[in-house]
């Protein structure tokens, strides 16, 4: 049970002067149950990559295997793939269209051809998962706050019970409160349901707190792939491609350079706090 990308490339405008290689021979495996952060700046190919994972974009070269089967093989059901690999687009609240919250969330399961009871049960469950209780069911999606709309939109994908959940910058445009709520919600989902989660983000600081693994994209390639600690070791290279490690990484490295006994692999404020206290306590 995994998604495997084998030497995938995606070129658009082939043969014209505007040819762009959005993905350049990307090979990677997304095993079950992992929480992955996909990082890169605009135009690095990360959005193109995730749209390959549920077949919205077809690779121009290479192959993608879902649970060992090529998604481009004859007879492979794209519709089923899309229900297994749920993709939440950037600003997902822009796709809400029904007159009330509940009906909108039903849209996904309804497209799967489930019976009415199952559809409603799933919609209810998905809304609970994002923390929207039944009192909102009847509300028009357009009366909700920005953060609530977004959670309803995420529920719209969750209601399809995907095994893999991909979120394209789910915190874009939200304030710190809205951002924390969404990320905590996603982390909880990962923990409770054991879903594979791919979180696309610009922000290393957001991602470092939650994920098991970080994939950094640049110019259509996966340039770094490892645990947050492994990836942030390359903080100087990350800077060169217009990304930055969390501020705390810089602090720790600066302290280390000055002769403070501290482990350079620290990625969160909490870890830094403990290490600094210990360093000061043990001095001399």
């Amino acid at each position, binding site marked *: 049970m995994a998604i495997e990308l084998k030497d995938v490339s995606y070129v658009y405008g082939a043969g014209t002067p505007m040819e762009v290689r959005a993905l350049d021979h990307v090979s990677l495996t997304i095993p079950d149950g992992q929480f992955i952060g996909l990082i890169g700046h605009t135009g690095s190919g990360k959005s193109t990559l995730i749209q390959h994972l549920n077949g919205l974009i077809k690779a121009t070269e290479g192959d993608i295997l879902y649970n060992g089967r090529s998604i481009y093989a004859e007879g492979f059901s794209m519709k089923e793939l899309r229900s297994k690999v749920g993709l939440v687009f950037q600003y997902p609240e822009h*796709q809400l269209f029904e007159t009330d919250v509940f009906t909108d969330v039903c849209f*996904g399961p309804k497209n799967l051809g489930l019976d009415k009871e199952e559809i409603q049960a799933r919609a209810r469950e998905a809304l609970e998962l994002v923390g929207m209780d039944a009192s909102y069911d009847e509300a028009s999606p357009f009366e909700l706050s920005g953060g609530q709309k977004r959670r309803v939109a995420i529920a719209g994908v969750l209601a*399809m019970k995907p095994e893999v959940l991909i979120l394209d910058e789910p915190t874009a445009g939200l304030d710190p409160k809205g951002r924390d709520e969404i990320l905590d919600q996603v982390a909880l989902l990962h923990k409770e349901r054991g879903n594979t989660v791919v979180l696309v983000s610009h922000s290393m600081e957001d991602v470092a707190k939650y994920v098991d693994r970080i994939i950094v994209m640049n110019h259509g390639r996966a340039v770094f792939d490892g645990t947050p600690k492994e990836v942030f070791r390359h903080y100087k290279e990350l800077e060169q491609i217009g990304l930055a490690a969390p501020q705390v990484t810089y602090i720790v490295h600066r302290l280390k350079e000055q002769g403070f006994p501290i482990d350079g692999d620290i990625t969160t404020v909490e870890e830094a706090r403990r290490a600094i206290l210990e360093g000061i306590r043990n001095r001399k």
Partner: protein
Amino acid sequence: MIRDITIGQYYQTESVLHRLDPRTKLMGTLVFIISMFLADTWIGYALSAVYLAAIIRLSHVPVSFIVRGLKAVMILLLISVGFNLFLTNGEHEIISFWIFHITWEGIRQAFFMAIRLIFLIMGSSLMTLTTTPNQLTDGLETGLGWMKKLHVPVHEISMMMSIALRFIPILVDETDKIMKAQMARGADFESGNLIERAKSLVPILVPLFISSFRRATDLAMAMEARCYHGGENRTRMKPLRYENRDRLAYLVMAFYMAAMIALRSLL
């Protein structure tokens, strides 16, 4: 497919055509459209083909780019060709079944109709390809300035047009995004009968309308913040002024029109 619509798009490059006064180009488009209804002989079509080819050449817009715009209107083209092909009565019948008759005249008619439509679309898309919407607006506004006396809100209409044109590419992108997002939720736009397909458009159209309204509100506020208050006391960054090249263009148009009229009455 929606990305193929070139009507209303501007193609950035340097050419004489780009530099012409928009009023000249508006007139030129009008002349060309009229001329297409005048042509009814092979020579007439050949002349307009040469004329069109020359203008395309002058515009420095790649032919492939203009041709791509035809794809979007393919269906319209096929329907009208079909009508002409099957439903024209004539003496030289080739095939006949039920109410359909393919006649020699029908083929000729269909062929001319196709040429006429293709030329019309190519000719008028050249206008927008070489003129920025703002220039187009200015051109319309000045060109139709006399209508203000009849209390036609010329400035407002042309401003609306230009804004519509500016937002077409943005809305096209947006449609694409919404479609993909709904497909990710299992929506299917390709199968089912006509009614089912029409119904499947609701999840695209509703978000699209909502976002258009939101954009309109935002834009209105941004325009107001930049002191927009209609056409009164407004100055122009690029005032319209006829140059020698415009006079020359009018001359060329006059010759072309004269030739087309001459062809029609003589042959």
